[in-house]
């Protein structure tokens, strides 16, 4: 492995992180909060480490192979989570390191699972930082770095491959840097649009910015104890719609920008995604009408919750833990489906589900006609055998990680629903689960050990398992 290059890139990441901390620092200055000091200290640490690792250390050999890309990604995410958790520890807002780490990992991985029971008592600059981690983690730090650094050489697509969700990574433009720039431009534009829409609805600037960050990264950290429930219906609907928008494959927007509207709407994944949302909303709305006694309200609640869960955001407007079993069942199902590939959402991804369903259909067909030949395709293009193979392995690994995690956290003696949905909510980067980790509850009840397991799940889920799994392979750490 190219160690010099790995440390160089990590240094740049730390510089970026330090630079990004100016925003929460500014918030601290505006509101004159003493917690700003902890942010300033962290920022200095990050910048100092970053400078130490980059200045005069530009490596001669700048090639990065696939495994380097995966390794850097895993290490980067662990390092930024650690650094990002320091303001919480320094300021005393979350004194325990594991708790602070949980909160930050939950932020960067856009999970939105919290260990805080009273969010409103937090200093505003730290609330801002918490939501900002969602925004940073949503599109990815390395993608951000790639849009800035003119790293030449074709090998840097390997960094993008490791961090971008989905079974296949498509470059939108010939160079990695311009692709990263396009992605971030779309991301920033959509975020700004949401902020403006929320401001128009009469929301305060601080609230609209932080909530938009949470939506954009499909994260789900609220800044009020009841998440989104106390905002106006207009704001709830705006957030609901924007969650859906951020869960769409960003290629869709790229095609729209290029005025290839037909092609955008021909994307099978996006169609499938919207279709699932529609069906789930209807099913849940019909199921919960008896509770709300009002068809329109039920539809709104159902829409918001479906949109929040399928995009793996995790905002809530109602305590869905009190909903009928069928609705809960649909929501848990949506947790697994997840958003589109190439979006900021987590989960298994719609395109994977789509392709897996087609493999299943193919297998059935082969039982009926053993000699039949059928190539599985998506968007009219055949899916490479290699993609199918790695997808099957992904599913197996996913299930294995899932089962082992449940087993490990069940040492805490909570009921199965709690454990199952806790793992589902973290591995799929959603946030709230059911029962003891339901929308009105939080993850503080778990022991430190269980929290570490869930931290791993969040990282593994965000990075699509393999970068994190790679850290456990003996060969990764050997020189040859």
């Amino acid at each position, binding site marked *: 492995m190219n160690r010099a290059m790995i440390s160089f890139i990590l240094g740049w990441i730390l510089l970026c992180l330090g630079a990004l901390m100016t925003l929460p620092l500014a918030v601290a200055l505006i509101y004159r909060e003493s917690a700003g000091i902890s942010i300033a200290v962290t920022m200095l640490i990050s910048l100092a480490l970053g400078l130490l690792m980059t200045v005069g250390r530009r490596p001669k050999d700048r*090639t990065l*192979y*696939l495994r380097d890309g995966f390794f850097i990604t895993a290490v980067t995410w662990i390092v930024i989570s650690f650094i990002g958790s320091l303001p919480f520890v320094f300021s005393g807002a979350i004194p325990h390191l594991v708790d602070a780490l949980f909160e930050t990992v939950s932020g960067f991985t856009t999970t939105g699972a919290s260990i805080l029971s009273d969010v409103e008592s937090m200093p505003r600059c730290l609330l801002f930082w918490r939501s900002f981690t969602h925004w940073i983690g949503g599109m990815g730090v390395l993608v951000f770095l790639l849009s800035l650094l003119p790293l030449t050489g074709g090998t840097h697509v390997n960094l993008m491959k490791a961090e971008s969700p989905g079974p296949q990574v498509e470059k939108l433009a010939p160079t990695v840097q311009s692709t990263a720039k396009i992605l971030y431009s779309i991301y920033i534009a959509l975020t700004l649009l949401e902020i403006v829409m929320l401001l128009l609805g009469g929301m305060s600037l601080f609230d609209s910015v932080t909530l938009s960050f949470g939506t954009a990264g499909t994260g789900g950290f609220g800044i009020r104890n009841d998440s989104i429930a106390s905002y106006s219906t207009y704001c709830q609907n705006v957030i609901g719609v924007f969650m859906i928008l951020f869960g769409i494959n960003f290629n869709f927007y790229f095609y729209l920008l290029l005025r290839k509207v037909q092609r955008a709407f021909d994307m099978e994944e996006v169609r499938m995604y919207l279709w699932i949302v529609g069906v789930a909303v209807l099913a849940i709305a019909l199921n919960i009408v008896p509770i709300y006694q009002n068809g329109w309200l039920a539809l709104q609640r159902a829409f918001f919750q479906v949109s929040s869960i399928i995009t793996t955001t995790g905002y809530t407007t109602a305590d869905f833990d009190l909903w009928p079993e069928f609705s809960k069942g649909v929501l848990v199902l949506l947790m697994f489906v997840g958003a589109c590939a190439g979006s900021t959402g987590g989960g298994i991804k719609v395109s994977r589900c789509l392709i897996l369903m087609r493999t299943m259909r193919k297998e059935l067909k082969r039982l009926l006609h053993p000699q039949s030949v059928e190539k599985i395709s998506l968007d009219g293009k055949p899916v490479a055998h290699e993609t199918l193979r790695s997808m099957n392995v992904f599913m197996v690994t996913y299930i294995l990680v899932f089962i082992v995690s449940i087993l490990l956290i069940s040492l805490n003696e909570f009921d199965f629903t709690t454990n199952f949905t806790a793992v589902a909510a973290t591995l799929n980067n959603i946030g709230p689960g059911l029962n003891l980790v339901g929308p009105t509850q939080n993850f503080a009840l778990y022991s430190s050990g269980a929290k570490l397991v869930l931290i791993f799940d969040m990282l593994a889920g965000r990075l699509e398992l393999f970068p994190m799994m790679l850290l456990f392979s003996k060969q990764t750490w*050997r*020189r*040859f």
Partner: protein
Amino acid sequence: MEILLVGCGKVGTALVAQLSQEGHSITVIDSNADKVERIKEEFDVMGMAGNGCSATTLVEAGVERAEVFIAVTGSDELNLLCCMFAKRTGRCCTIARVRNPMYSREVDFMKQQLGISVIINPELMAAKEISRLLRFPAASKIDSFADDRVRLIKFPVTETQGLVGFKLRDLGSKLGHDVLVCAVERDGDVSIPSGEFQVQNGDLLTILVPSGRAGALFGKLHMPNHSVRSALVVGGGTIGYYLTRELVENKIRVRIVDSDYRRCEQLSVLLPEATILHGDGTDRRFLMEAGLPLAESFVSLTNIDEENILLALYAKRQGVPKIVSKINRLEFDDLLEGMDVDSVVYPKYLICDYIVQYIRALQNQAGNNVKTLYRILDNRVEALEFTVDEASELTGVSLLELNTKPNLLICCIIRGDQIIIPRGYDRIHVGDTVIVVTLERGMHDILDILAD
């Protein structure tokens, strides 16, 4: 001796060259008449075009008279069949080349049941040689004598060893008295040096050392004396397979590169401990991704000699500490000496040496046999191991009084468990094993070392 040889490929031709030089009368058989013609033109031998495993052809070629029968065609089965026919029709010793790994475990069975005297597997020999080199990377060539109790090790002299400027007579005090410099190559000239010889930078020394002391010796010379820990092997053919099998047994991590996907699959089943990479070994990017700069050794074993050399040079440029290359066909050994390839292995010479040594031993069935023969310093020096089975004019006489041929050195006397680096007053006794290094060719009896 009357020798009948079937198969005029690379090995066959090399054997004919060597054996005809040693004065044997040889008849070659090959199904390809052109090849036979070419050999007849080049060497002083008889030739016949025909099927080597038809009794008629064999009889016609004089199998009844032959004392040695060698089958080195491209096909294992054909070689075995030829030998069986020859054995039945004549009374000769039979030597067959069998290279398929499938048969490698059945060698004893074949020898006993089919009555074949020697079964040689050049790929296995090459693999063993390479594995020896990788386990002792400072040496560019290692030959072992007396059941690997004594080794001849060749290595280049560099500034860091602290040898430059020493006279050979003083080396004993520096390196210990059980070490002997047997041959030196300087600027392409090979000599057997005297005590006055002064070591220069860039000399290629061949030294004799007891196997157990080799590590300590290299330690004294500030050269690496431990085995390599990882190897990148390009070419997953038979040698690659045997080599990897040997290496993983010694806990060396191996990555094999092969461009044939099917072969990669086979190898991954045969060698689960090794990492098999599918790709073109001449693709720079691919080699780098395979970890070339981090490997402690690089072995090029493709079927194309030129490619092997280029790959070796490239690996050297990337800073790989130990490079081994295999050459099948090329005749330009001397050119390679000047290149930056640490070690070159020639499977065809390995098998030639083995057969020549066997035949020389046959010639002296009762006398003082050649037990081992190596040609060192690209064929210009022979190192021979003799067993002294009967008293003669050179037993019991101190070496000083022996009138040996010029350019000849008695390097070592092995008496029971003792390894003696002989001085002038030492004597050879019956029962000893003696190692001799000489520029002279074709010795097959210890008495040949005496001047006429």
